[in-house]
Every structure is written in structure tokens, then in C-alpha cells.
């Protein structure tokens, strides 16, 4: 089998890596490690734990890939993120006492246009509220959000991973977005309550 070339489709890269091609393996790590890391960081809120988990996921892949454990045709990402999701669940269960929130040390969200201007939602408070709102979600809702945004998966891929219909996942995603929005609005109103209007109303 000819060796790895840049730009190969993922299934070809996976096949090459499974045969021990080190460049193909590096390509897989480059494509997916940060997405795995982001899912872990979002849930565990700890950079060291997130990297340990990411290392563990890829160690599992390295052990199972050449042995033929991956047999799902075009669903490599679903396989990878299923491993990730299971690890994240286990780790989160073990670390029930929530680690320190990341928000205190985070800088405001950058403007994607690179103008340097701060977005209306870019202050640390809104970031903290967003993370807190995600904490308030149930596991199923939160997993859809994190697979979709942190894992950058399509709904079709999430459907392959969870075994649920795409329509169900879309509805869950919308419901989770709504819960997040409502929770953030409640938190914002508590942080800066509206002053009472004059006019004698108590």
C-alpha cells in the first residue's frame, strides 16, 4: 500500500495508520486531538485532566486501530468521539467535586474578525454565565451541545454515534440552546437587577 500523502480522505488516512504508517497517524492526531481536548475541557474544566484524557483516547486508538477494532466503514469520527464521550463521562463521574472553574483566568472572547473590539457577549461574565448555563443542562442535552460545537460534528455524525434519529437530536439541540439562553438571561438579570421605576410602585 502506497504511503500517506497530505490531503488524503480520512478513511484512507485511517487505513494507512492502521497499517502502522506513522505520518498517517500524525495526521489523525493533528486533525482530531484538539476537538477531543475541547470536549474534555468543556466538561472537566481542567486543562491537565483534559490533556490526560486526550492522550488516553489516542492511546486507545493506537491499540485498537491496527487490531481491526474499527470496522464502522465511514464512521471513523463517530467511533472516535464515542470513545471520547465515554471517557469524559467516566472522568466527570470520578471528579464529582467540580474542579476550579476556568473562567476566572480566561480572557474575553476574541472578535473573530480580528478587529480587537470586544463583542457584546465577550466579557468574562458572559463567558462564566455560558459555562454555568451548560453546567445546568442534563447529560443528554449537554452531550449534543458539546459534540456539535466542541467536537465539530454534524447532526448526522452525532446520530451515528448515539443511535438516535437526526430529528430527535435537532430538537434536543434547540431545547438545549433555549435552556442556555434562558439560564444566561436569568443570571444576567440577577447580576444587574433593573432599578425600580419611579411612580410609587413598591
Amino acid at each position, binding site marked *: 500500500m502506497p504511503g500517506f500523502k497530505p490531503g488524503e480522505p480520512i478513511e484512507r488516512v485511517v487505513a494507512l495508520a492502521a497499517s502502522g504508517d*506513522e505520518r498517517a497517524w500524525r495526521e489523525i*492526531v493533528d486533525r482530531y486531538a484538539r*476537538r477531543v481536548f475541547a470536549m474534555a475541557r468543556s466538561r472537566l474544566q481542567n*486543562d491537565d485532566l483534559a490533556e490526560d484524557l486526550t492522550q488516553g483516547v489516542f*492511546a486507545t486508538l493506537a491499540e485498537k486501530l491496527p487490531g481491526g477494532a474499527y470496522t464502522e466503514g465511514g464512521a471513523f469520527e463517530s467511533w472516535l468521539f464515542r470513545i471520547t464521550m465515554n471517557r469524559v463521562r467516566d472522568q466527570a463521574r470520578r471528579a464529582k467535586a467540580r474542579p476550579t472553574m476556568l473562567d476566572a483566568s480566561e480572557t474575553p472572547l*476574541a472578535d473573530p474578525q480580528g478587529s480587537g473590539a470586544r463583542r457584546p457577549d465577550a466579557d468574562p461574565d458572559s463567558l462564566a454565565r455560558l459555562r454555568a448555563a451548560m453546567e445546568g443542562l442534563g447529560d443528554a442535552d449537554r452531550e449534543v451541545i458539546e459534540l456539535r460545537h466542541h467536537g*465539530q460534528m454534524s*447532526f448526522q455524525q452525532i446520530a451515528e454515534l448515539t443511535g438516535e434519529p437526526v430529528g430527535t437530536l435537532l430538537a434536543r439541540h434547540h431545547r438545549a440552546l433555549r435552556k442556555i439562553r434562558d439560564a444566561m438571561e436569568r443570571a444576567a438579570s440577577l447580576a444587574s437587577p433593573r432599578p425600580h421605576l419611579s411612580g410609587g410602585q413598591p
Partner: protein
Amino acid sequence: MTNHTSHDPENARTPADLAPVEQMLDRLAQRDRDAAAASMESRIVLRTGATLRATAVSSGLVPLAPRRTAHRVTLALAAVLALALSLGVALTALRAPSTTTPMLADADTAPLADEEGQWALVLAVLESPLDGDLDDLRARSDLLNGDVSAREDASDWLAMLEGTL
């Protein structure tokens, strides 16, 4: 950025009032991806690359790498050299009592090859094909050293050599 940009038909299904929340989540996720150390990928490859290759080899998906073969060749060479030197040391040790204490001479001190012959064997061994015939090496040793190759220490070396090759 995420896969679900405006050309993604799935994105069109997001209600307008929820779009800002979705955009915030995208930015938060990007921040989480960017928070990984710059060297994380290299550390992962360093830690897992050998596992991947070893598993592929043990699964029969890939032959031994040339460098690994070279490593085995080096080991084999070292073993052959050690064998030859061992025989030389044994011969020297056997010869010494025969010159200093002639009264102790017995069958073990039967006529032995000279040192030139021993080193000729070393050279012959080193120049021989590495996948060559072990019996041939044993025969050369026998011819040179008579019954020395039947001694316990020489047999051990030959057994080790067989295992290495």
C-alpha cells in the same frame, strides 16, 4: 470553525432567536480547542506512535522495519563476535596451565589452534552471510578448536547465538 457554517443545511434549522447562543457556543468551543498546549499533538504522537506500530506488527499488518532488522543484525554480529572471543579466551585459559604446570596437562589441553587461527575464525564469522548457516559456523569452530566446541561454555554461546539469529 465548526462544520455547520451557513452552507450547512442543518444550520438553517436553528431558530433565529437561538442563533446568538449558538454563535457564542462556537466561540467558546474554539477557545477550548485553542487552550490545548502547542506541543500536545507531538506529545501524543511520541507516546502512542510506538504502540501503533507494535500493534500493527503483531497483527501482521506490517513487516519488521529495516531499522529493526538492522538492530537484529547488530545483535547477531555482537553475539558472533562474543562467541568467537569466548572461544579464544577458553583456548588461552586451557593453554596457560599446560605451559606453567605441565604436570596437570590432560585431555582438555589437547593440541589447540594458534591465536592466528582464532582470529581468522573471528574474521570468517564476521564476513559470513548473517542469515548464513549456523552449522557452518559450528563446523568451522570444531575444525579449529577440536573438542572445545563441545565444552559447556562454548555450547552455551552457540545456543545463545542460535536464539539471536
